[in-house]
């Protein structure tokens, strides 16, 4: 069983471009889905599933697997594209996204999609569930790690801080939270809606080990995830600075592309840009 593959950064970058292309196709086909936040977290997901996490696509419910919780459940398309790329289900299924009866729901559903470890969609829930998994791992003396990907706007939910406090209190060093810090939420800039800064200071004041990376630099992402795994007695948060809509020039840093499906023409333009990248 292969736990991790030695792969070049180039390969990972290719995977993430391919996954981004699939995101475009899915969303355009379904005329639904959250494109901006899916593109911003893509490199993180690829790093997790292709390099860092111990998973076996043939056994999505394998007990000793590392877990991943997509707390920003609206980025489902990104996770689906990566899971399909990794072989959890056939890539042709991607085009069923958001159709009635599909196993690819608008927000991720663990009962329907192989490889999805937790159902999410309403913001603020994921870190609690991830902390529960991490705690379960500790109780059962298992060595798996739990990763949770949170949106930045999501940090406005009080439940997140309940979980942050808890994970530190319980010394859950098998838990890594990653923040997709793309600076935009549904309605505008996070800093204008409800400022979450000073972000690192908040997590430090709540007892977490903190790191800050460029969320589109594959080497930095992987390095930080590895370092997180070595930290003892406290959970780690990686604040990943990202660009909403990353990879498609006309979507980058644009609030309106939070959940707007592209037209077929826009999709073609995006696919072309991604091919050239």
């Amino acid at each position, binding site marked *: 069983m292969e736990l991790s593959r030695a792969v070049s950064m180039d390969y990972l970058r290719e995977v993430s471009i391919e996954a981004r292309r699939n995101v475009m196709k899915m969303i355009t086909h379904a005329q639904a889905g959250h494109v901006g936040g899916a593109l911003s977290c893509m490199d993180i997901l690829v790093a997790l599933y292709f390099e860092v996490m111990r998973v076996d696509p043939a056994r999505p419910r394998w007990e000793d697997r590392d877990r991943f919780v997509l707390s920003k459940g609206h980025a489902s398309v990104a996770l689906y594209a990566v899971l399909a790329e990794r072989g959890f289900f056939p890539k042709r299924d991607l085009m069923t996204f958001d159709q009635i009866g599909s196993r690819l729901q608008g927000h991720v559903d663990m009962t329907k999609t192989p490889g999805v470890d937790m159902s999410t969609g309403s913001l603020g829930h994921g870190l609690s569930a991830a902390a529960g998994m991490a705690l379960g791992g500790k109780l059962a003396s298992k060595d798996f790690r739990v990763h949770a990907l949170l949106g930045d706007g999501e940090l406005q939910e009080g439940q997140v801080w309940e979980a942050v406090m808890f994970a530190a*209190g319980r010394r859950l060093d098998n838990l890594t939270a990653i923040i997709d810090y793309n600076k935009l939420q549904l309605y505008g800039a996070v800093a204008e809606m409800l400022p979450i800064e000073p972000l690192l200071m908040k997590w430090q004041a709540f007892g977490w080990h903190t790191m800050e990376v460029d969320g589109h630099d594959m080497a930095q992402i992987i390095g930080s995830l590895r370092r997180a795994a070595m930290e003892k007695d406290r959970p780690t948060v990686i604040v990943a600075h990202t660009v909403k809509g990353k990879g498609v020039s006309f979507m980058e840093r644009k609030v309106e592309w939070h959940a707007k499906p592209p037209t077929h023409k826009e999709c073609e333009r995006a696919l072309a840009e991604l091919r050239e990248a």
Partner: protein
Amino acid sequence: MLSEAPEQVAEMLRQKSMEARLLLINTLHESGGGHYGGCLSELDILAVLYNGILNIRPDDPEWEGRDHFILSKGHGAIGLASVLALRGFFPREVLKTSKKLDSCVGWHTTIKMPGIEHPTGSLGHGLSVAVGLAVAKKLDKKQSRVFVLLGDGECDEGSVWEGAMAASKYRLDNLVAIVDRNGISYDSRTEEVMPLEPFADKWKAFGWAVRSADGHSVGDLWNAFSAVPFEAGKPSVVIASTIKGKGVSFMENSVAWHAGPTTDEQYRTAIKELQKRAEVAR
């Protein structure tokens, strides 16, 4: 308002607080018990607020220009009720009705009681309500300030941090939160239940101006409250170190005395101790 003769002021506040303690113990004992621990820990804070800081009119609790106070730790209701009664919001006899149906005296605050602005009891609500009230005051360009007293265990609640974040966004320097940091929540000590430290850092990281005070030193509290806002454009929080059950030796710093009934003998001991302290203080 009382800055002329600090020593006299402090003496007055101490006395008010002592009277309130006696009234509290009497009320709780008569009503078959209650939240001794948290009522005793908050009492000096409330005594200082109501007798030296808040701009209020006991004969007109709804007076427009008043400062507002919300007891977010609603289980401290009888502590607040004792202070309100002594301040003249209602006759002391009202406190004797606590056992009766339809009484305004309950284990948690009720709006039936004169001087109570908002009912509380479930933890983690008060700060948000206070934020709304402070925003309304700003909108109306009113000078009134909003004070809200939280328990420390209460800060486990995520909604507290939602409120904290919002207060900082709206630059509510007319809002003052006070945390009754007695170190004990219901089940156990806060640092065992859910570690809160570094507590001041958390508030700072959420954009608040923080000051610590000895929650049983009326002078210290008075100085802190008189200095709000600590920073222009920021909400202020006073972290008041207190002792749960303060003033009654066998209740002090004890997890067991969060709430409960007192025997007649315990009651007599408590009263005796408090009276003695009052004399010594004099």
